[in-house]
């Protein structure tokens, strides 16, 4: 997040340009409003402790939103991200259960988890970009495949993760909660990725794949790399899920797929590709978390919570799309 909102003072035209340059601004505004509302209805919700709780719970969705973003950059979509999360989750839990929870072992297993995510991403990339199947249906098919593999590894939920995993995830390093270190590391990685050729190439492909191809870009390879990157971040999301839930569950990610798509749109990405920022997607994942916590703090009866969340998210989605379009008109 760079640049202070000084240009906003230059009237609608200035504001528009500013929004075009920083498409995550609407998401940021919604985030600030939500934080304020959370604080008003329940001052304790802004305590360090409860913010840590929100981040712990929603770090996985942040990672998954980032994963989805790289695919959406190129105008593709990945409906298998949730299944990848499930697969990596059960894979690492099963491996840890067999190999014990020693420090080096955990790292090795996480390495394997990343490799599994990467492999899933490459499969998606090959199927969509190389075989040229329609992304929505093809990644739905691979999600069934990945879910099947997850069920093969662990037919039922409930295998616990070694204590080292959730103690680290829920613990502190130098008095700062681990999840904040993770967020900082994520920010650093995203900043690095934003400067790579791949990011620019993905966005150019999303802009118009035929033109990018005619410009001499290796479009198929670039799209496969986008899916591969998506798989890696889905694996990271699986690590967070594992740390947060401390167990393996072959269906844990299923509900997260559509949330990741919602987060990406809410964060200012165009599903048609070529427009967006990972910053926006991360912010949007937090927004989804804050909406859920706000609905709770406002005192919504439990049976109404899902509906209010659903309404709030659809309104936020519409607002995001409308503001972005206004900026580009």
């Amino acid at each position, binding site marked *: 997040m760079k640049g202070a909102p000084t240009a906003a003072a230059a009237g609608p035209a200035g504001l528009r340009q500013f929004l075009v340059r920083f498409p995550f601004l609407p998401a940021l505004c919604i985030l600030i409003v939500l934080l304020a509302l959370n604080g008003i209805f329940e001052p304790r919700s802004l305590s360090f402790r409860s913010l840590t709780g929100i981040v712990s719970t929603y770090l996985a969705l942040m990672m998954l939103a980032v994963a989805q973003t790289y695919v959406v950059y190129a105008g593709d*979509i990945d*409906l298998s991200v949730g299944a990848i999360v499930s697969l990596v989750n059960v894979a690492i839990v099963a491996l840890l259960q067999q190999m014990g929870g020693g420090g080096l072992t955990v790292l090795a297993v996480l390495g394997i988890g990343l490799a599994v995510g990467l492999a899933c991403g490459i499969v998606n990339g090959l*199927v969509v970009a190389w*075989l*040229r*199947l*329609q992304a*929505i*249906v*093809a990644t*739905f*098919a*691979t*999600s*069934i*495949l*990945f*879910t*099947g*593999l*997850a*069920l*093969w590894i662990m*037919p039922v939920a409930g295998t616990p993760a070694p204590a080292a995993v959730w103690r680290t995830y829920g613990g502190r390093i130098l008095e700062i909660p681990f999840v904040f270190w993770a967020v900082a590391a994520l920010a650093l990685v995203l900043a690095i990725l934003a400067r790579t050729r791949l990011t620019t190439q993905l966005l150019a492909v999303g802009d118009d*794949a*035929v033109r990018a*191809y005619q410009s001499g870009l290796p*479009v*198929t390879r670039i799209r496969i790399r986008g899916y591969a990157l998506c798989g890696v971040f889905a694996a990271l999301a699986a690590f967070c899920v594992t740390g947060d839930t401390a167990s393996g569950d072959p269906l844990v990610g299923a509900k997260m797929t*559509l949330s990741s*798509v*919602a987060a990406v*749109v809410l964060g200012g990405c*165009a*599903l*048609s590709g070529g427009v967006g920022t990972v910053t926006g997607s991360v912010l949007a994942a937090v927004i989804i978390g804050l909406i859920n916590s706000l609905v709770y703090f406002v005192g919504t009866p439990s*049976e*109404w*919570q*899902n*509906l*209010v*969340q*659903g*309404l709030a*998210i*659809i309104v936020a*989605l*519409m607002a995001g*799309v*409308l503001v972005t*379009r206004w900026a580009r008109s």
Partner: protein
Amino acid sequence: MSAVDLQGGAGPGGRVLAIVTQPLVVATLLIVGLLVLGEAISPGFASAQQILRLLIVAALLGIVAAGQNLVILGGREGIDLSVGGVVSLSAIVAGNLMNGQDGGIVPAILACLATGAFFGLLNGIGVTLLRIPPLVMTLGMLGVLQGLLVVIRQGIPSGLAAPALSEFVTRPFLFGLPGIIWLWVAIGLVMAFMLKRTVFGHRIYAIGANEQAAYMAGVPVRRMRIALFMLSGAFASVAGICLLGYSGSSFANVGEQYMLPSIIAVVFGGTPLSGGKGGYTGTMAGAILLVILQSILTTVNIDESGRQIVFGMTLLVLLLFYGRGRAMRA
């Protein structure tokens, strides 16, 4: 055999040939092949009884896919992810209005159609007037519908299907086929007639193939698109009612299982997600194909994981037959 009958019913006499597009042929061959395979693996799989059961399940999916098909044909990345929510919602609404009484059927049907059309209207307004991408709009609507379901389930019992409705769906009605099959055939005929022989149908293809050109030729693009989403909601609600009749009572999120399969059925039927070409006859075959495939996998003696793996792989292989994108290099 019944699959072939269905096709024959799609258009009168010699025009059948014109309607049978290539994906339809592929799907039909696959259906026959899978039936033979199923019979080989587990004798009795292709018995009349079994096929009838498969057709009922396929009809439920096929009715949802009818609306999905229309929205997709209309182009501009048309897709309706909210159909699953509408199916669940109308199953509940219908179950409560009937409450096991035949007298409640008509009000239930009317209420469900209105509900489905209403949510379709909201989707359509979001997509056309606010110009929200359909995937986003209907995804958001799905969230709202799921929330609504939770609210409704708390307040009211799950409801019971009227006996006549259950009979309509599960018992033979005419020539040994239950009413739902006839309903599906009728929907198939109406859809084929609408797409081929009405101005409305021609306009669906026009906005799907080139929205700007359609607008310049005086097609009311927005009204059309809203109508398509309303029809999608209405078809989903019809499927919800039938589903209630099939299972006797409604239970949580019964409709969710139809969301992505309805899209796959459309694609298997030869309508690409980009819209503008294809039709419903193929989608009917696509729905039957999908249901038979799932059924074979449950017949085979492997565990859930193996079933899913094989299903996923098979879907990928089948998708290779359909709607592959164009190569960049001409």
